């Protein structure tokens, strides 16, 4: 019987997020890597929060002290991850653009080689070499202008704050530059090109949220859930007639979904500098965490469960409303 309870709670808590992970995120390997990054950063935040809790003994038993700082750490790391993400991915061409450019490049190259062949018979070797070099440089310019223009067309909503950093990673070698250096730079760039291709921002923020949410679920609820396999069962102190594992499972499911929504909303807020969205994220996070204080003994778990479910539904609706209003969904490339 406890096995049944275990699997029931497991599926209640994790099946929405896992389904989202496998049906949406697992299709794209880049998104998988992003979700791993999201989980790692969430883990760092919770570790810092726990260290903060550990080094200040007098406040250890005060929930009103624990909750704000842990939430602050989580949101701080979300912002750090956003900065990292935008440093890595803004102003990068997407994968389809890369392929397009690749074909374009091959075509141009072929044409250029044909021309060279004609020139070859007329020009002596040395001049020919220089000519080729010049042509390739011109071609670089074409290419860069092409990529930048296509990016700027598609990412009008994207806030290009980090142009210097991304341009440094995508440095074009000058003609005067030493051959070896330029070669190594382009070599690395070519290798990282597909790795750092710009993913769809909405999907990638959802992937980050899924990673952090799933980690949240396993860390916060995993150890509780594993105890469900033991003999006997446990009832919630707040609601003596309800199973503790079931209450926790429902809460975990809601908070995992909230993590996904919060990640999408916060990333969009940071990107478009609409900070009221970020404020909404902070507010829901605080409210939900403080509502779970009602799970303590001598209070009522209905008071925490029902509002949290409502908040989850509302923030999901708000997420879709925001995405539709800003055309982020219809712009999937």
């Amino acid at each position, binding site marked *: 019987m406890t096995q049944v309870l275990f699997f029931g709670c497991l599926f209640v808590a994790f099946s929405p997020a896992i389904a989202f992970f496998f049906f949406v995120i697992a299709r794209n*390997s*880049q998104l*998988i890597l992003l979700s*791993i*990054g999201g989980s*790692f950063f969430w*883990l760092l935040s919770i*570790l810092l929060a*726990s260290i903060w*809790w*550990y080094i200040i003994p007098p406040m*250890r038993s005060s929930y009103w002290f*624990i*909750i704000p700082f842990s939430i602050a750490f989580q949101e701080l790391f979300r912002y750090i991850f956003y900065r990292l993400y935008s440093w890595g991915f803004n102003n990068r061409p997407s994968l389809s653009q*890369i*392929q397009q*450019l*690749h*074909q374009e*490049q*091959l075509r141009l*190259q*072929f044409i250029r*080689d*044909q021309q060279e*062949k004609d020139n070859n018979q007329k020009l002596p070797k040395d001049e*020919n070499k220089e000519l*080729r*070099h010049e042509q*390739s440089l011109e*071609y*670089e310019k074409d*290419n*860069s202008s092409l990529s930048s223009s296509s990016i700027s067309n598609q990412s009008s909503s994207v806030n290009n704050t980090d142009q210097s950093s991304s341009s440094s990673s995508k440095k*074009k070698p000058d003609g005067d530059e030493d051959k*070896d250096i330029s*070669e190594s730079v382009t*070599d*690395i760039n070519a*290798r*990282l*090109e*597909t*790795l750092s291709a710009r993913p769809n921002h909405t999907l990638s923020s959802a992937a980050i949220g899924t990673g952090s949410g799933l980690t949240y679920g*396993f*860390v*916060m609820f*995993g150890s509780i*859930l*594993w105890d469900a396999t033991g003999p006997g069962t446990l009832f919630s*102190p*707040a609601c003596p007639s309800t199973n*503790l594992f079931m209450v926790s499972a429902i*809460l975990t499911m809601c*908070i995992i979904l909230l993590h996904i929504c919060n990640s999408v909303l916060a990333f969009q807020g940071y990107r478009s500098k609409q900070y009221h969205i970020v404020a909404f994220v902070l507010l829901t996070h605080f409210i939900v*965490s403080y509502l*779970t*204080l009602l*799970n303590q003994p001598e209070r009522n*778990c209905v008071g925490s469960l029902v509002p949290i479910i409502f908040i989850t539904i509302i923030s999901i609706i708000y997420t879709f409303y925001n995405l539709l209003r800003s055309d982020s969904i219809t712009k999937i490339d």
Partner: protein
Amino acid sequence: MNSPNITSRNNNDPIDNNNNNNNNNNSNNNNNNNNIKNHYNVNNISNIESDKIKNSFPDDDESYDGEYENNMTSSSGSIPTDNNNNSSNSNNNNSLFNIFLDEKNKKSEEDEDSDFESEFGKHEYELETPELVDYSESIVNILIPVCITMLICILLIRTITMNEQTVQASPLIHNDINDAEPSDSQTLVFNPIINSIIFLAVIILSTFIMVVLYKFKFMKALYGWLIGTSILLLGVFGGYLFILILIYCNVPLDYITFVVVIWNFSAGGMVCIYYYAPRLFHRAYLISIAVLMALFLTRLPEWTTWAILALVSIYDIFAVLCPGGPLKQLIDTAKKRGEEIPALIYNASVYIGMANLESNDSNQSSPISPTTITNTVSTPTKSQFNQQQNEVSQPSPLPNESSSCSTLNEMLEDDDDHDENQMNKTISSSPSSSDISDTNTDHSIQISPDLTTSISSNNLSTKKPSNIKLGLGDFVFYSVLVGRAALNDMITVCTCFIAVITGLFLTLFLLALLKRALPALPMSIGLGILFYFITKVILTPYLLFIGSTQVFI
């Protein structure tokens, strides 16, 4: 890249194992193409075109093949006997040196053979229809088996080992799990150190023996050793685990059936790992070896486990990166000979297939560089062809092979470049050397299918340029870390799991940057150990305090 020509030739030589591998490679390759096609429009055209070109050079290809195969059998067969080996090795050294020469010299030669160019420029262009493959995809392809191994380990330890503590029915091995806490502080400090030094000595000894065997070409002894140890591992540990599962499930079984099952399991494993098998079975057996080894190592006392993990990951840095390190020696030797290192290595490249991650064009700073071919062949026509191809694909920098010294050996060298990052792992003890071999540009487009297939008959990895290889030892030690965490708590398991995965991802990312063999253990194990102790000391009480009243933050 198959051509009917090749397959028929292979079928004529059923005796040769290498050719069997060859067929396998080809089929894999087709699968790869299909897979890639789903994501991108990849290279049917290149196949067709390569066939075209091949048809245009029928004579050259055949003569080339004959020559090449002679060389292959002499230099890189499983049991080389010829005197030619020495000469070929020396040539390999030279050519290896040449490869890393500046490409400026090559430029001057690039404009020869304009006749060829005019004839085949069109084909060239068609050959290079884009083959862009995510590097992230190859990273994920190596992360997935690691995750599977660790998950199996966690589940087995959480169910069987925990159960075993209460049942106490294991007849074979003394259960050390609960002995980990000696009261004496001196034994607490010194026992783990001594144990781990002994363990490391075994690892170094076995690696040394392996390198010696490989360097002096005792290939039969080497393979005998590898097969013997892996059959013992599968049989003994697999049998023990099978008994534990039977006890856990409370199923009676007679010894005859038991012996038959275990024998079939381990003998089948030998066939799958060392001979020829569907890809799924091959990988399943590699994973099962890793899981069994990790389950065994998890039974060591706790502090011994940590000491072993730390020492082994430090040793891993030395063995892979240091010039005199044994694994580096092994890799270099294999590079010289153009062979795949005979060891247990998980090769994730098969899914990825034709990826060409690095393209060397110096002039084109544009992110996407066309794939290039750098192989050169001894036959003059071939080298001309290559030169011409180089010209088309790379305007300025010509690979050195176009230079006059191009020989068959250079081709071997190119293959070796692929292998450069391979790590080696001896089965029983092997420290983890991670081999992650980064991709090679060169083979992305094969001029003549015959050429590439003949190479790949020798070396599994040549066909797939973007292959990431991870030694099985890395799998084992990751699983040991996570399994040790699984003896504690689910929170610890979760944090260690994520730490290991993140460390592996960072390593692979560095691999893309540095393009050389890297040790996979230090970063993952370091992060894992750090997270383990932080979790155990600080995070678990924190979460227990919060969770005791069901407060969610």
